[in-house]
């Protein structure tokens, strides 16, 4: 019992980085191209946006509300609105894009936090509404930033900005958001209240925590980080469209769960989630490096493998929790 508890604690905080190291070793064995600055930066760059979303999702998961399924909609709409606002200037564009995240986050948070609708069902409905709105308003058209304007050029260059001349902006932003997320979750009063809420909703309520507001804040954090990722992804794709952000919801929750955050809430950490994102990055990279004769791992196979890993991790997690009695007695 004691040993299992300790094992679980270690698995929660460090386990994911053990996995990162193991995958690193596998990558080095598989290919000489693996351990090069270019490959590693590319690998990390490919998941930086996912990382930004995952850190946001971590707050929702931590609050025991699983995840926000409207993330792809938030990402797409943020990108489209940002592009549409470009005629008013670059800063106006970014502000408008993030305002989309704040607004949808507030709506999700009000409905789930205050009215206590099931988060999965509500955000699924929100996703449906958002994609409908995008199709209706833009009548299936995609919106392109106008390269003739300075704001348009700035928007298109946004994703490719390099800080200090070498660090890609998405990676820098991920580092910043992850650091901020860590401080908020571990060191802030909000984080402590969120942990109590995630561990036991009723207890938090009977402790005088303003639970609806706490839950709403988690949803706002999640959708703001999604809209940041959505704007960057739109910049990368050079187009605002309804399909931008597709699949980010499931990828993000996979990273969160691999990173040791349990779906029952109140357990896990932002560094762990970042570890989960790195695991996904390395897996993707290694899978594309695999060549056995004619056999390569295509994107379909990757989806299957990722799904299998998700199920495996959730399964192991709930098994360990149940047998160690950490599941609420």
């Amino acid at each position, binding site marked *: *019992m004691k040993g299992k*508890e300790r094992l679980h604690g270690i698995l929660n905080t460090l386990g994911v980085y053990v996995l990162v190291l193991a995958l690193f070793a596998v990558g080095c064995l598989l290919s000489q191209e693996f351990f090069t600055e270019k490959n590693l930066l590319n690998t990390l760059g490919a998941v930086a946006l996912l990382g930004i979303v995952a850190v946001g999702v971590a707050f929702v998961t931590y609050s025991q509300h699983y995840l926000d399924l409207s993330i792809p909609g938030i990402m797409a709409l943020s990108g489209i609105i940002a592009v549409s606002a470009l005629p008013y200037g670059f800063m106006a564009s970014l502000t408008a894009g993030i305002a989309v995240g704040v607004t949808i986050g507030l709506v999700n948070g009000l409905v789930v936090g205050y009215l206590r609708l099931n988060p999965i069902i509500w955000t699924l409905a929100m996703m449906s509404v958002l994609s409908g709105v995008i199709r209706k308003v833009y009548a299936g058209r995609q919106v392109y930033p106008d390269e003739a304007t300075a704001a348009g050029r700035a928007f298109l260059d946004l994703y490719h900005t390099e800080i200090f001349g070498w660090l890609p902006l998405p990676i820098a932003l991920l580092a910043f958001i992850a650091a901020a997320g860590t*401080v908020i979750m571990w*060191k*802030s*009063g*909000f*984080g*402590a*209240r969120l*942990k*109590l809420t995630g*561990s*036991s909703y*009723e*207890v*938090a*309520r*009977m*402790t*005088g*925590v*303003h639970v609806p507001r706490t839950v709403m804040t988690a949803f706002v954090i999640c959708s703001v980080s999604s809209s940041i990722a959505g704007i960057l992804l739109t910049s990368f794709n050079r187009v605002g469209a309804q399909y931008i952000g597709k699949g980010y919801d499931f990828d993000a929750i996979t990273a969160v769960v691999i990173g040791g955050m349990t779906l029952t809430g*109140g*357990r896990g950490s932002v560094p762990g989630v970042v570890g989960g994102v790195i695991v996904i990055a390395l897996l993707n990279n290694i899978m594309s490096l695999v060549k056995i004769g004619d056999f390569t791992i295509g994107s379909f196979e990757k989806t299957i493998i990722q799904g299998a890993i998700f199920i495996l991790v959730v399964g192991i997690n709930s098994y360990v929790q149940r047998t160690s*009695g*950490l599941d*609420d*007695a």
Partner: protein
Amino acid sequence: MNDIGIALELKGVSKSYPGTLAVDRVDLAVRTGEVHALIGENGAGKSTLMKIIAGSFDDYTGEVFVGSKNIQLHTPAAARAVGIAMIHQELSLAAPLNIAENILAGRLPARRGIVDRGLMLKDARRWMGLVGLANLDPLTAVETISPHEAQLVEIAKALANRPCILVMDEPTSALSREEVQHLFTVIRRLRRDGLAIIYISHHLPEILEIADRVTVMRDGRKVGTHSIPDVSELQLAEMMIGGAVSDLYAKRRMQPFEERFVVKGITRYGFFHDVSFSIRAGEILGLAGLSGSGRSELARSLCGIDPMDKGSIALSGKPLRFRNYGHAVSEGVVYVPEDRKAQGIALRLSVRENALSAIIPRHSLHGIYSAARGSNLLQGLLRQLEIVPPDPKRIAGTLSGGNQQKVLLAKWFATQPEVLVLDEPTRGVDVGAKVLIHKAIAEIADSGKCVLLISSDLPELVGLSDRIIVMCKGHVIGEMDKARATETSVLLAANGERGALSA
């Protein structure tokens, strides 16, 4: 007792967990047609012993005889097969299903795979009649019946297995006084029918009332088995804690100060009406009432957890109107809920996280929270309440019930409240923890705070309170001072007999 057939006998039964001997060579003989009480503090080994009887372990040592046959109880199925049925503290009914389906769960009468409804209803009615639920429709969904009725359905479900030994674990913990009486009538009838009943409880007066014999356990060992008329409550308490109990109820230094917390005409329609009272500084005001009298609802509205429709509250002359519970806590009016596991403490968080959870804002600076700022306070509380083990990192859910309750109290003591509302502060805790909790409550009152004590435990209410107000059907029907309040008078008043108030 004319029939001294032994239904169940344990000889030298032991069970060890890694590092501890939970049950140490226990002998126990339960006769047919007797109610055999099993008592002991939390951690005394009675739950483990019951689990052995229920077939939860395949690695106990010693011998078990059922009806003089040597039996191995290595699986729950083996226990069921020899006629042992358990009724757990937490009920095991499926809420959306109806009573009949619950009682006959797993063996619904069926013909070629189709449930025979008529037979099902007839069967269910028979078992319901046995436990005094004949007036209820077997098709009622379990989620709509009261906890008391659910408890009886649980018993009916156990009886449907036709057991010869029935184990009941704290069956009265969620019941009001008159519901307990009803349950006892049912138990007496089952005893008359020759059932051997093992009755586990913390509640000594109940045991004296219902049991024929009592076995006391302490530290995994059996202290002794006694016939009920031969022992007193005090003797049992001493056997349980292994020393003399000088005074079950802490002495109070009674000094009436000025009125501090004044409640005028508060009403929440449908729950309580026009309630007025005041608590003086340093006073423990008892609130008596049957369950359903509106006492918990009153307490929750007082603290801003539930709304109220009319009335006013003032603390030290300052009128208070709470926006939400967090506001009340910051003003020093706190509520310690009765349901420790669901509302009191987060079982999977540590002792420290729980104990400091109500004062997160106080340990935050510019939004940054540091639990380390509370460590002195925490150490003090661990010492004052003698929480065992005194380890702040320990997960609260791994503590014994009594210690969990102390953590709950520590959490609210940490807020340094002006008005402390306690709802059943010692429900389901052992005698040792109870004495300590009483002492701590008396201390906090003595430091000049106001305490409102809600309790169904009449000796506790009468022993601890300086004054008692009595609620009945949503109204305060009267008040008694310490000199006049006795268990009997409070009970009569709570049942609505105004005569008891003036006697």
